[in-house]
């Protein structure tokens, strides 16, 4: 198990380094000179030169790369050309927001998906089970921003129950935080919940046909008892895989919801930075996103080993 983690960490590092190279040199292909953009209209050549020197964009690319990449692991992302401020604390704020939003959404989604998916699997021949899988099929087909817009129209603009948008950190005013986080979390969770419901359903159906469930029933356990005691943990393994993939995709995928709900998360930071051609910020946000994805994979791998004793054998 130790070796397995070690290997994964090594993979993490290699993947990450390759990603920094890819991202850095890709971003250099951006048309438009950051100095020009920072200065805006009527920038004079002298001013441009001066600003380039200030940004360090007049140095060779390779120097710029190492300057940036070596700072990353230390949490030093450099100073933005556009905001002229240290990027790290800004990203830290955004990461917090994104993680809170996405993790809450995932928890809610799982809270929807596990019971409903299980129910739909157990009752897969009953109308109620078919109804649930039908609804989840529909849910999957709805873009989450559409869900977000509809939620705002109904609950904020129409009924006035909740604020339409905005973000309050939980530390500042927890009540307000909750009020504001409900709709975006619901928007994300409803669609994610539908996706996960499908996976839970098929995982549970798969498990239901396993021999050990029959064994459990032959011991005198009821259908549900057997499923809960023996099936769910087994079913959780494929569901965990999907959840981790979804979670990673959601951190950037939430950008659409961040836009709809005016939430200062990583996604909107990235979009704004792209709009401002804030190269360093773009690169850094991308690398943070990549790191989060890789960390999720790492954590999930550890979870697998905890969940599944067979993995230690290297299955």
């Amino acid at each position, binding site marked *: 198990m130790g*070796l397995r983690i*070690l*290997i994964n960490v*090594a*993979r993490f590092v290699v993947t990450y380094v390759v990603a920094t190279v890819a991202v850095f040199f890709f971003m250099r292909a951006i048309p438009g000179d950051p100095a020009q953009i920072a200065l805006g209209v009527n920038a004079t050549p002298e001013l441009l030169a001066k600003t380039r020197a200030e940004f360090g964009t007049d140095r060779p690319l390779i120097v710029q790369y190492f300057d940036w990449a070596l700072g990353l692991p230390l949490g030093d992302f450099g100073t933005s050309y556009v905001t002229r401020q240290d990027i790290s604390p800004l990203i830290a704020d955004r990461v917090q927001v994104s993680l809170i939003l996405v993790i809450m959404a995932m928890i809610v989604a799982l809270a929807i998906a596990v019971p409903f998916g299980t129910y739909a699997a157990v009752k897969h*021949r009953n109308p109620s089970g078919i109804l649930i899988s039908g609804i989840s099929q529909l849910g999957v087909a709805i873009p989450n921003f559409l869900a977000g817009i509809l939620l705002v129209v109904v609950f904020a603009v129409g009924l006035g129950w909740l604020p339409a948008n905005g973000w309050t950190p939980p530390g500042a005013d927890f009540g307000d935080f909750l009020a504001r986080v409900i709709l975006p979390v619901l928007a994300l969770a409803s669609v994610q919940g539908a996706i996960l419901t499908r996976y839970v359903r098929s995982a549970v159906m798969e498990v239901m046909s*396993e*021999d*050990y469930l*029959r*064994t*459990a*029933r*032959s*011991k*005198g*356990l*009821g*259908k549900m*008892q057997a499923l809960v*005691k*023996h099936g769910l*943990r*087994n079913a959780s393994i494929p569901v965990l895989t999907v959840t981790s993939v979804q979670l990673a995709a959601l951190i950037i995928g939430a950008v659409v919801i961040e836009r709809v709900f005016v939430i200062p998360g990583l996604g909107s930071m990235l979009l704004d930075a792209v709009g401002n051609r804030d190269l360093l910020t773009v690169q850094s946000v991308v690398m943070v996103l990549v790191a989060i994805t890789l960390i999720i994979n790492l954590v999930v791998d550890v979870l697998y080993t905890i*969940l*599944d*004793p*067979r993995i230690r*054998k*290297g299955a």
Partner: protein
Amino acid sequence: MADNDVRSSLLDVSNLAIKTKTRTLVADFNLSMKRGDRVGLIGESGSGKSMTASALMGLLPEGASAQGSIQLAGHPGNLVDASDKELQKIRGKDMAMVFQEPLTALNPLMKVGRQVAEIMTTHKVVATKAEARKRAVELLASVKLPDPERAARAYPHQLSGGQRQRAMLAMALANDPGLLLCDEPTTALDVTVQRQVLELIQESVAERGTGLLFITHDLSVVANVCDRVLVMNNGRIVEEGSTAQVFSNPQHPYTRGLLAASDLNATDAEGRLFTVASAAAYTPPTIEDPQAQPQAQAEAEKPAATAAPQAAAEGNQLVISVKDLVRTYPVGRTALFGKPGEVQALRGISFDVAAGQRFGVVGESGSGKSTLLRILAGLDQPTSGSVQVAGNQIAGAKEKDLLQLRQQLQIVFQDPMGSLDPRMKVRDIIAEPLLAPGQKVDSAKHRRQVAEMLGAVGLPAEAAERFPHQFSGGQRQRISIARALVCQPKVLVADEPVSALDVSVRAQVLNLLSDLVDDYQLTLVFVSHDLSVVRYICDNVVVMNHGQIVESGTTEQIYGNPRHEYTRTLVNSSMSLREELASR
């Protein structure tokens, strides 16, 4: 069971029928059992044995439903109509079941001890969880698991197949059920382990006066375990009676066929195994005269197959010559770093096979038989040692050097379905060896060759246009053999070619193989864990254990007079119908 009368009635099944929407799977099933009865239920694959057992447990798969009546002692009313709630109280307490696949039948994520304890806590026969755990360890000890404490703490994958099956048995016996159902509990096990598990079942059942319903397709096992037999065919009981009576004097042709085909010690007038078709001429074993007659019969008929190669072996050159063959596999992922473990599949093997020999390789699961075959076929490279096949050195050979070898050596595999590409037509499958690089494609000639081979293995010519899934298991294995022989190899290696087949089909395939080896003058290397099969078809045998050859010699020497300790256990563990009946 406060009932002291051991012989009181236990189970009464009458007119049990199992149906799906479209089919009747089991019909007219009647069974009456007393306490302590040991009843065998035999029949071929798909005859409805498992369905019947499931119906008794009230665990029929979705889509299948039961009718009729099932009465279990101590429970008023018909179990067929009982609600799941009522059945829950019975399952695992008054009636327990052991399933065939010991790995998949246990929850892979739960420690074995807990799984055993669960059956007790579920029925609240113990007060506390701690006590259940303690009892679980005792039970594991009672099924003779070495180090039961450790076994209780282990996950299923950390136990061997036999150990897992013992754990299953411990579980089933935990609450002293009146009725124990065993559905092919030893099919997945090695012969030595099978013997142990069977003995254990018998012991435990006898000790507790438990009624046993034992399902199997292996007649010798039934002869070993049961005192009464039901023979099932196509969902119906075709014959019923005491074991001795049914096996020595079968009334129904199906029973006779089954007996004939599973008896590898008996051959017909032409020295071939009996098949269902030729069973009429078969003389069932008799209890009065167990040894002499059949044994003699087998000895008498065999020379037809054995004499010739024996003679050939002396003058002919060696076709296969293996020296100090070692193969080790790294285990765990081939990681970036870290010291991977090793499995020594072959630990220095040497043997020779002369042209025309029928060379058997026996040994238990994991002893390295398949690995050896793969190397012989040039599909795998030895770690060290030398392997000469038909004049080709395999060790260290390049892919193109092996082309020559592959024309001379072909393989037949165990799984008749898995060894045929499901998306290819039979014609393309059989013609595949003809398409080897360097050979020119002549489709008309190929067509002819394929048709010829189909004829040789007894399949109609139109079979060429069909897909593998449109054939039965035995037919599929014929296709496999046709493919192996189409390019007229010198050597045919077969890896458990009949292990996945029903007894009736097994006999046909073995006969076919035997005929073709003669017709095409092949050298045969035949791998099996089933001693009786090897004994029938081979003239020379090596016995493998843990990657080593522990003994080698002619079939007669090995079976008649095993010298090595392991060979002896192997020979003693394997069951033959006649011996089992004799030893009753």
